[in-house]
């Protein structure tokens, strides 16, 4: 390296070492290394999401012929095009009786939401999360400018989204779907991830903490989904689909001839959002417009003891989740009259096909509410449980737990208190959703019976409590895997329940998912036996987890 230096520079001794160090700190080299560092940070999650989504999507392609085997079935399925109830669930779709239309309708539904959440979380974790944890400081102290650092993170995210897009295009094409549609789908989903990553990036520049950034970006995501639900209603004009990226992906079918417009819309939005994020990037470290200043809290009330602390930590989380779930429940169910009326007029054969797929009694208010809750809210409350176990683990990983356990607070008491607080949180969320459903249906025109609405909320609890117990079990036995394993279990069980039948997996395997054992309340009676079994397994798992925690070392991150 010394031979590359200019003749005026010393070529030996400490000075040459310093000069060599300077040459390796050229911004291009530093940018490239930082980019690779960011790629590595994102790698595991990116691979997991890519393999799962591309694989499941390709499975849907491969099993289409078995699922919709006859011309009559295809015609019946095609009849569902434009039905608001399904568009509220799955987004806009056309020709669901064709292979392309069928697969695209799956992607516009839950897959698109998963892709969006991935993009959003990747950005807030990589940007504000790293900054908050102090990882950004050494990088900012290096040769890269704030915008250089941001660009390397953005490039890393875009790289993984591009790989994801290629994986979706290639697997779907290989599984038998029209190549152009496959690649269009892959590109659009990559762009959707990039869009929400851009939202997360902008939120990470604006908000001063990762939590606040995630809340901000999550609110945008929720609003975009709410617009999609509104667009599905018959009373709203068609252009509303174009008001949300979740609407754009409904125009990918070749019959719409709108792919160019979709890609252009995504490209413009992504560029604008990233440009805005770069505009905010030259700021103080750890600073932000939202939540950046900490008001003096001289009036802050005492927390009290461990119970008070638990109530405060869990209470804040419950309030946040309850607000989001209640808002979503309201948006979905306030339009219930509109959806149910359309369904009631549906062709009998088409209705039969969808009943075979589990969508029963959609022609009643109870049926529609049961489907909506089963589709979105069961997993929502279960994810709350997973988040609570992750928060419990975070107390240990950060060693804050040491302040309590080095004092006269027993481990068992600490963990049982935290677990019960989380369980109470699950109950609060269930009740909140039930009450909001009742209010929203009443405002929509036809109120459910209050008891039915409340039971529908209660039905969200058993699976969530089961996952809470499993999360505590993991915390007791494998503490470092608490968050990934518990979230992984919830998502795997959900995918198994919703995608498993499409992939024609054996019943024995499908039955492993707790979600499969939930009754369609309020259209059906609450399955008390299944609920008690889930509660029993959850309680047993939690007990084992508590016992294991009592007898193990505390473990840092």
């Amino acid at each position, binding site marked *: 390296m010394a031979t590359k230096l200019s003749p005026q520079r010393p070529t030996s001794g400490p000075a040459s070492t310093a000069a060599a160090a300077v040459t390796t700190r050229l911004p291009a080299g530093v940018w490239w290394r930082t980019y690779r560092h960011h790629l590595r940070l994102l790698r595991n999650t990116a691979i997991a999401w890519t393999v799962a989504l591309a694989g499941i999507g390709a499975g849907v392609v491969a099993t289409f012929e078995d699922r919709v085997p006859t011309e009559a079935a295809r015609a019946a399925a095609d009849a569902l095009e434009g039905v608001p109830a399904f568009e509220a669930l799955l987004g806009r779709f056309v020709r669901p009786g064709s292979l392309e239309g069928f697969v695209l309708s799956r992607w516009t539904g839950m897959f698109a939401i998963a892709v969006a959440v991935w993009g959003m979380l990747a950005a807030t974790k990589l940007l504000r999360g790293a900054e908050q944890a102090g990882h950004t400081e050494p990088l900012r102290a290096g040769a890269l400018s704030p915008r250089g650092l941001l660009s390397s993170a953005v490039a890393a995210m875009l790289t993984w989204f591009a790989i994801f897009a290629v994986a979706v295009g290639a697997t779907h094409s290989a599984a038998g779907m029209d190549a152009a549609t496959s690649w269009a789908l892959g590109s659009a989903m990559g762009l959707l991830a990039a869009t929400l990553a851009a939202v997360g990036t902008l939120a990470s520049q604006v908000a001063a903490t990762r939590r606040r950034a995630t809340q901000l970006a999550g609110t945008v995501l929720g609003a975009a989904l709410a617009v999609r639900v509104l667009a599905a209603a018959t009373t709203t004009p068609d252009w509303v689909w174009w008001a949300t990226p979740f609407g754009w992906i409904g125009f990918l079918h070749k019959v719409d001839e709108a792919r160019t417009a979709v890609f252009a819309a995504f490209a413009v939005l992504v560029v604008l959002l990233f440009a805005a994020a770069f505009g905010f990037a030259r700021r103080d470290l750890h600073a932000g417009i939202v939540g950046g200043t900490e008001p*003096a809290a001289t009036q802050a009330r005492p927390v009290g003891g461990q119970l008070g602390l638990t109530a405060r930590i869990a209470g804040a989380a419950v309030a946040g989740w309850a607000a989001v779930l209640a808002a979503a429940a309201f948006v979905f169910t306030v339009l219930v009259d509109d959806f149910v009326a359309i369904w009631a007029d549906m062709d009998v054969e088409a209705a039969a096909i969808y009943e075979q797929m589990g969508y029963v009694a959609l022609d009643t208010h109870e049926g529609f509410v049961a489907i909506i809750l089963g589709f979105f809210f069961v997993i929502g409350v279960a994810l709350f449980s997973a988040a609570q176990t992750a928060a419990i683990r975070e107390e240990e990983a950060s060693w804050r737990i040491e*302040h309590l356990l*080095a004092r*006269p*607070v027993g481990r068992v008491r600490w963990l049982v208190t935290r677990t019960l607080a989380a369980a109470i949180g699950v109950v609060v969320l269930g009740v909140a959703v039930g009450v909001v459903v009742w209010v929203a249906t009443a405002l929509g025109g036809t109120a459910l019976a209050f008891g039915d609405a409340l039971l529908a909320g209660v039905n969200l609890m058993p699976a969530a409590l089961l996952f809470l117990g499993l999360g505590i079990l993991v915390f007791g036995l494998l503490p470092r895997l608490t968050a990934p394993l518990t979230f992984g279990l919830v998502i795997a069980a959900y995918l198994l329940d919703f995608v498993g039948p499409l992939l024609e997996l054996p019943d024995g395997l499908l039955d492993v998912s707790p979600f499969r054992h939930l009754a369609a309340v309020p259209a059906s009676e609450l399955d008390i036996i299944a609920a008690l079994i889930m509660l029993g397994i959850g309680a047993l798992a939690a007990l084992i987890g508590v016992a294991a925690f009592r007898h193990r070392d505390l473990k840092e991150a």
Partner: protein
Amino acid sequence: MPGSEVAAIRFVETTKHYGEVVGLERLTLDIAMEEIVGLLGPNGAGKPTAIRTLLGLLKPTAGRAEIFGIDAWQHPVDAHRTLAFVPGEFHVWPQLTGGQILDLLGAVSGGYEPAFRDKLVERFNFDPSKRGRSYSKGNRQKIAVIAALMTRAPLLVMDEPSSGLDPLMTATFQDCLREAKAAGQTIFLSSHILSEVEAVCDRVAVLREGILVEHGTLAELRHLHANTVEATYLGAPPDLEGVPGVEDVQVRDGRIRLHVTGSTDPLLKALARAQVVAIQMREPTLEELFHAYYDETTHAADTAA
């Protein structure tokens, strides 16, 4: 220490292994009531392991650790009723204010005197009204120190307690330790600040690679190690060949510098035979003692390599 008296802290063959890695190996150490004992050792010596095992946060692989006669792993809650703990790095609850954190830790410790807390808050020049996330490292450490001191617990266990404190606050902290000792509290602290240990501790224990290599009063430790002798002479240098305990002799420009271990009598007799005009003898500082142990570690590692 009287045999009938219960020790404030007792490590009994306390061993902690992390798989193949030795964290602590058969540590046996008693700390009497009202003693201040410092725990020293280079990085990786096992100091946090010793303290966390004592607190019942880590399960001993063998042996036990007791606090006032109570097994810390078997009965942690009872053991913790008599102690307050200061960690080396204090991770705060970001959403709570400093005042709320102090109140919380006081409440779970079994209570505290608000007036004494306020006095400590004033002495440490601490602003309790800010949220946890906005405190600097030094201010976070002040929370830990105040929270421990304000409970007036009979036993204070501290892991690098003054880490992050500025020199003024470090001095205030040391004053507080002396007052705590005067009030009859027992203190067990690990520290890298040797002057702090030297200033406040009655006894010192030195860990190396999880093994207790030395413990005793500073005077006892010094007795085991070489004193530094510097003498000025006229004419020929003193003949120190074969004088017991003498090593590292350096002679230059009429001055001689050496280290002597054990009795100094043979050395003084040898020096008396020369024309020595001035002599100065100095005991090793704690830093020199520490370096002696540390250098041995490094040397042993180099030899093994």
